[in-house]
């Protein structure tokens, strides 16, 4: 499989396809390009931008799933297709999946700019908690397996350690995380969520920890993560920013 995530230096034209989404960059002048994204015959995005000395640097990387169809929510709720029952004082590791989007960035010396983001999956949202005190979340149904089964370019793999420190059996139906805290890692074009664990200390509340390190050896952090949440920067910084360990307390059930 040809690697698609990465940096591209474009001098003339460029086309790349992610299933039904085709991205193209067409030179329209000495220093200008037109960006297009075609989806099943419909052009859904068009941007004209200038370049330096006729060259354009483009980066295509996975980003957090908070851009499509619009920026409605920054939480992700992963519903487990089969709930996981955990005995008291036990832990188990499972492979899950979460949605990702694909971000297209222009690269310059001083800053990078996300010109487009799209999703290969159909985005749906759900409410975690109650309307008066809950969170709107990007919804995803995940299979549970003992090995990596994420759909390429559509999902990221999660290697999640479930820990039940309570004295009772618990059943986990869902995990919820704040996308601002999420770091993504790459192995080729396979995307992974950072090292994570779900801790249940009593019967009502679960805490999801994002540990700011790759879940496996040899993975590289996705470099464009910061640019993908620039529009949310204020709220993001209030939550601690990048490069910190994240914790999401699931107080409305798990």
């Amino acid at each position, binding site marked *: 499989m040809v690697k698609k995530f990465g940096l591209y230096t474009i001098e003339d034209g460029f086309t790349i396809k992610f299933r039904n989404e085709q991205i193209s960059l067409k030179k329209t002048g000495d220093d200008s390009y037109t960006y297009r994204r075609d989806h099943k015959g419909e052009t859904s995005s068009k941007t004209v931008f200038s370049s330096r000395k006729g060259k354009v640097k483009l980066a295509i990387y996975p980003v957090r799933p908070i851009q499509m169809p619009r920026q409605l929510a920054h939480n992700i709720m992963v519903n487990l297709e089969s709930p996981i029952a955990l005995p008291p004082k036990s832990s188990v590791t499972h492979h899950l999946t979460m949605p990702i989007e694909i971000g297209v960035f222009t690269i310059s010396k001083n800053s990078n700019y996300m010109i487009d983001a799209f999703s290969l999956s159909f985005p749906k949202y759900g409410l975690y908690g109650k*309307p008066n005190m809950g969170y709107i979340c990007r919804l995803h149904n995940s299979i549970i397996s003992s090995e990596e089964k994420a759909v390429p370019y559509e999902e990221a793999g999660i290697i999640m350690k479930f820990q039940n420190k309570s004295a009772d059996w618990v059943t986990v139906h869902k995990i919820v995380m704040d996308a601002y805290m999420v770091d993504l890692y790459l192995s080729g074009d396979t995307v992974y969520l950072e090292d994570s664990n779900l801790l249940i200390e009593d019967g009502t509340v679960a805490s999801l920890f994002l540990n700011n390190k790759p879940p496996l050896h040899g993975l590289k952090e996705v470099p464009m993560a910061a640019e993908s949440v620039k529009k949310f920067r204020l709220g993001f910084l209030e939550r601690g920013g990048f490069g910190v360990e994240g914790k999401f307390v699931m107080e409305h059930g798990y």
Partner: protein
Amino acid sequence: MDWIDTALPGFGFTAGQLLFALIVIVVGIIIGRIARMTSGKLLSSVMSENASNLIQRIIYYTTIIVATLAALSYLGIDFTGVLLAGGILGIVIGFATQSVVANLISGIFLQIDKPVSIGDPIGIIDEHLYGVILEINILSTSIRTFDGVNLRIPNEKLFTSTIHNFSKYVARRVVITVGIAYHEEMKKAIDIILKTINENSLVLAEPAPLVYVDELSDSSVNLSIRMWAPSSVWFEVRTEIVQQIKKVLDEAGIEIPFPQRVIWNGKS
């Protein structure tokens, strides 16, 4: 420096006393400003900008008034008469400014109770007014109505009205009623509508949408369609879904009947 002890003609105090009194007032103003700045820094993290500004102004002017009264008292001005006159004047002013004070107090309570915040789309039911909160001031609140008119409403009226805040919660329910003809297959219509709803990205999958037969009405079998949407896109979802439902029911050949009445003419 003899002028300091020189009595001012027509006044019962010296130039030095007057100078000192002025210094007291200036110091009062400076202290008031410092108190305003300090309270602003302290309050900005715990309350809204408007509430913080209001309290800062109260602190500032109270300090200046206290300093002025202290200075005048130092000059030997007897306040007994002033207080008596002030009492009577206060009653008069109290009556005259009743609505102003009521608005001021309501403004403070609006800041504390926070039924609305800047940017909230609201409806004031008693007044039949709908719009977005632009500004909450000491005496009044500015609202941009949905038809683009700027409206200033006294705080008392706002505070004592029934307010619908459309964005207080993250999600709102959309309720639509669609009538289908009596001869149509209800389950087929329900399935088509549910499919349409689920294909809309902005309709929340949780809580799950619900479509059910609500009423066997005069002219139609009424289906109630209930779904949740993020508050920020509620109106968009509602308008989109109504249009989509009409389209898919038309495509499926399911009739949405007009109100009709069968009239029997008895044989003469």
